[in-house]
């Protein structure tokens, strides 16, 4: 009886250690990832032209609509809206998948920094003082 209790107590920290990685392998997260990956094929050119940039809150926004021919602008707006829907859902899902829905804001700000960090040179992003070119 005592032995069993001890064993359990000793295993608990190991479990916590295993949990040091965030859970990101849920069906919902995978679905969002592949949707965003597919959309990136269309968005990449707009990041490069400066039409679309990365925002401070982990989303994207139209930065320079003039970089897009008039007839394509509506399409860009829809792309941005769809991407932001997925990004918002992604942050929410990651927080939820780890049992802490209240982590959403922190997940979001972590992502905001990492998107910018990994952005290619020439892409636009927002920092505390506004738009900047990487």
């Amino acid at each position, binding site marked *: 009886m005592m032995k069993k209790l001890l064993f359990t*107590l000793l295993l608990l920290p190991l479990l916590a250690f295993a949990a040091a990685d965030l859970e990101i392998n849920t069906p919902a997260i995978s679905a969002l990832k592949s949707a965003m990956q597919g959309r990136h094929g269309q968005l990449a050119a707009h990041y490069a032209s400066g039409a679309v940039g990365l925002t401070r809150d982990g989303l994207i926004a139209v930065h320079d609509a003039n970089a897009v021919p008039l007839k394509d602008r509506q399409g860009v707006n829809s792309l941005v809206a769809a991407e932001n829907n997925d990004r918002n859902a992604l942050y929410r899902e990651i927080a939820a998948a780890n049992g802490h829905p209240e982590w959403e804001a922190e997940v979001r700000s972590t992502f905001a920094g990492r998107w910018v960090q990994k952005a290619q040179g020439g892409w636009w992003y927002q920092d505390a003082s506004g738009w900047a070119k990487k």
Partner: protein
Amino acid sequence: MKRISWLLLVVGLVALPACVTINIYFPAAAAEKAADKIIDEVWQLKGEQAAPETKESK
């Protein structure tokens, strides 16, 4: 043997709050790691993932 059991019990009890702590505070390092993994997939950066840490400057 009994002494060892007690020692283990104390160690376990001390370690217990540590698990709780990990789960209450936002794991910033783990989140960064998770974010990097997802961004690499979404932007398909896996090929050039070798040296992302060296690019600290903006």
